[in-house]
């Protein structure tokens, strides 16, 4: 113990008497602030620079003035207050979860309150981590960081890629290998980062931010599988926000299929593994070649059918005048035969009329009456005699028979 530190005033009162009295009387008198200062010094020196952490359950968690975090850490028997600036709190904390507070125990001079002044807080155990993660997730979700409406598609054929990964990792090797297998000629800038541990979140965040300065078509972040604790850097709020804020479309694949980190949820596209990540980033050249060939085939077919269609239309058009002509011809034949037929009919009806008139006339001929034995009697003037009143006895008449005629004298007349 360094007893001279902090301006400790030392006052020894000596009494005559037995030696134990000197022990009793060997007293140090402090001013309050000196006392606190000394105690704090002692506490700081106690573990010789070794980090100390205290584990317990959080209770009474609160943030004051937006800068100071304070809560009690307790177990079944005891309780200690923990105090830290808000920027040192990198994990989501709430009442009831188990944390480890790492820092220095000290007394806050103003209120004489003993607390653990924490440099950082770590979550203890998977349960706490899961709980904290769920908490952070729901907060960020409410803020809209995982909104599917905000997701941008990756370009189909990216050329320049920013890769945030650890160059030593198997994930990096897998990603690059599959990328080259599928598609060539890509420009990949690697932003080498630590992918786990305490310093990882800061390194990853800085890498994402640095990549924003470059002209990239996609920002890819990947790492292989690991325990939940190992993957926690990708659940870090700053990392998640950096991914969310990236102006370059993002593709993130962390761990295995079953691991889903918040960074992946915030990304535009999520890959399940580093290999899957490469698959999602670039198409397979064979697929593209096949697709191209299919397209060419389709286009050829479409053109051919268009040509066929046009040819049919053309021959239709070419044939049209001939068809029209044929129609005209048949119309002509019809009209001409109507005329010849009409004229024949017309002539026939005229001759029929002639015949019936002739018949009528024939029946009226007086000669036909003489045939039957009748005679025509005319007087001297030649007029036909139809009554005895018009002739006198002694006058001469001429009688006409069917064959020949004779003259005769009227000798007597009768009224009947």
């Amino acid at each position: 113990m360094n007893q001279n530190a902090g301006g400790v005033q030392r006052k020894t009162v000596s009494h005559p008497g037995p030696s134990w009295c000197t022990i009793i009387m060997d007293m140090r008198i402090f001013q309050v602030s000196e006392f606190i200062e000394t105690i704090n010094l002692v506490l700081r020196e106690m573990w010789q620079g070794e980090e100390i952490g205290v584990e317990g359950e959080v209770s009474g968690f609160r943030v004051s003035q937006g800068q100071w975090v304070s809560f009690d850490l307790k177990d079944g028997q005891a309780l200690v207050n923990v105090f830290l600036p808000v920027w040192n709190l990198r994990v989501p904390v709430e009442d009831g979860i188990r944390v480890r507070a790492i820092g220095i125990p000290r007394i806050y001079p103003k209120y004489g309150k003993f607390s653990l002044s924490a440099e950082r807080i770590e979550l203890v155990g998977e349960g706490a981590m899961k709980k904290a993660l769920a908490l952070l997730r729901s907060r960020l979700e409410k803020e809209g960081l995982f909104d599917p409406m905000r997701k941008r598609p990756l370009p189909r054929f990216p050329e320049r890629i920013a890769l945030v990964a650890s160059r030593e990792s198997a994930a990096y090797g897998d990603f690059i290998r599959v990328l080259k297998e599928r598609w060539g000629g890509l420009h990949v800038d690697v932003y080498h980062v630590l992918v786990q541990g305490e310093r990882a979140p800061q390194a990853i965040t800085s890498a994402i931010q640095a990549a924003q300065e470059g002209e990239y078509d996609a920002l890819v972040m990947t790492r292989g599988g690991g325990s939940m604790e190992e993957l926690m850097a990708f659940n870090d709020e700053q990392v998640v926000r950096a991914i969310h804020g990236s102006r370059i479309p993002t593709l993130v694949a962390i761990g295995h299929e079953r691991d889903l980190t918040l960074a992946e949820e915030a990304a535009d596209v999520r890959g399940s593994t580093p290999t899957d990540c490469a698959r999602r980033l670039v198409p397979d050249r064979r697929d593209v070649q096949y697709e191209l060939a299919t397209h060419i085939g389709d286009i050829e077919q479409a053109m051919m059918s268009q040509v066929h269609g046009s040819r049919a239309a053309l021959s239709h058009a070419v044939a049209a005048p001939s068809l029209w002509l044929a129609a005209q011809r048949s119309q002509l034949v019809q009209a001409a035969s109507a005329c010849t037929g009409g004229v024949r009919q017309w002539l026939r009806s005229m001759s029929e009329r002639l015949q019936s008139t002739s018949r009528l006339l024939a029946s009226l001929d007086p000669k036909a009456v003489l045939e039957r034995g009748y005679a025509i009697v005319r007087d001297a003037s030649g007029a036909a005699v139809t009554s005895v009143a018009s002739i006198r006895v002694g006058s001469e008449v001429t009688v006409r028979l069917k064959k020949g005629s004779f003259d005769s004298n009227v000798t007597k007349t009768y009224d009947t």
Partner: protein
Amino acid sequence: MTPKKETKKIDVAKGFEELEGIADWFESGDGGLDEGLKKFERAMALADALKTRLDEAENTIREIKKRFNVTNEE
């Protein structure tokens, strides 16, 4: 019958109209003989002129097709 002045430049549509008109006249029946004969002669002349016109048209179509190397229909 030698009234073959109409062969050139007969209007096909009008020619048909007239020809069909004459056919109707005969069908409706009455009319003078001389008039009828005159009409019949006119009809025959029209039919002949129209036929000539259509033959010419067919030839022209054939020539044009040959000129543009169009193989025959369909």
